[in-house]
């Protein structure tokens, strides 16, 4: 069965510093991978998505992620974080290659920005 692991429940970075949020997936097939962000009292918003192809994908607000099949990873990066990036970030894998539509999510990483 597919699964997603986000090993860091909480990450603290200084405003202006670079960021990496880690995501490891387990999926026997061709993964379609996503990063979603959840701001307080809001639903999930898509940051970026990976469909098989270029391993580095660009998203909104300066986020990017790199897919690695050998490491089963899909880490999220940003060169310079802003206070408005304070949110919870979720990595997810889809089952589209098996003809199913639902997403499986990791437990999420809370990003805290220090001034």
């Amino acid at each position: 069965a597919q699964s997603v692991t986000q090993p860091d429940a909480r990450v603290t970075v200084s405003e202006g510093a670079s960021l990496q949020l880690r995501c490891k997936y387990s999926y026997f097939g061709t993964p379609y991978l996503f990063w979603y962000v959840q701001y307080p009292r809001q639903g999930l918003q898509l940051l970026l998505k990976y469909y098989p192809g270029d391993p580095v994908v660009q998203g909104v607000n300066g986020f990017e992620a790199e897919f690695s099949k050998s490491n089963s990873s899909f880490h999220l990066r940003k060169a310079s974080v802003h206070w408005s990036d304070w949110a919870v970030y979720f990595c997810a894998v889809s089952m589209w290659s098996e003809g199913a539509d639902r997403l499986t999510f990791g437990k999420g990483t809370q990003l805290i920005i220090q001034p």
Partner: protein
Amino acid sequence: NAGVIQTPRHKVTGKGQEATLWCEPISGHSAVFWYRQTIVQGLEFLTYFRNQAPIDDSGMPKERFSAQMPNQSHSTLKIQSTQPQDSAVYLCASSPRNTEVFFGKGTRLTVV
């Protein structure tokens, strides 16, 4: 485009009462999903519909939970005899086929 609309945003029910949560998907989207979010369990898939037909309810608790999609403009999640452990944020989402999934803001259910 108002996005996925969920009502109510907050609901408080007494233990043993019934709760009905409503979702209006984005017009033209063929898939509707329900997820449950808690601190302990994170985001859990409950069920989904494709073109109003139930496709996968493998995440639904077998007792007390039911979901319906009577027409393409709304879906409901009903919880009978609510228990404190049902307290969670219930998220509805919709999607065209095999593309981005759009989430509503959720309904926070509190069972007292």
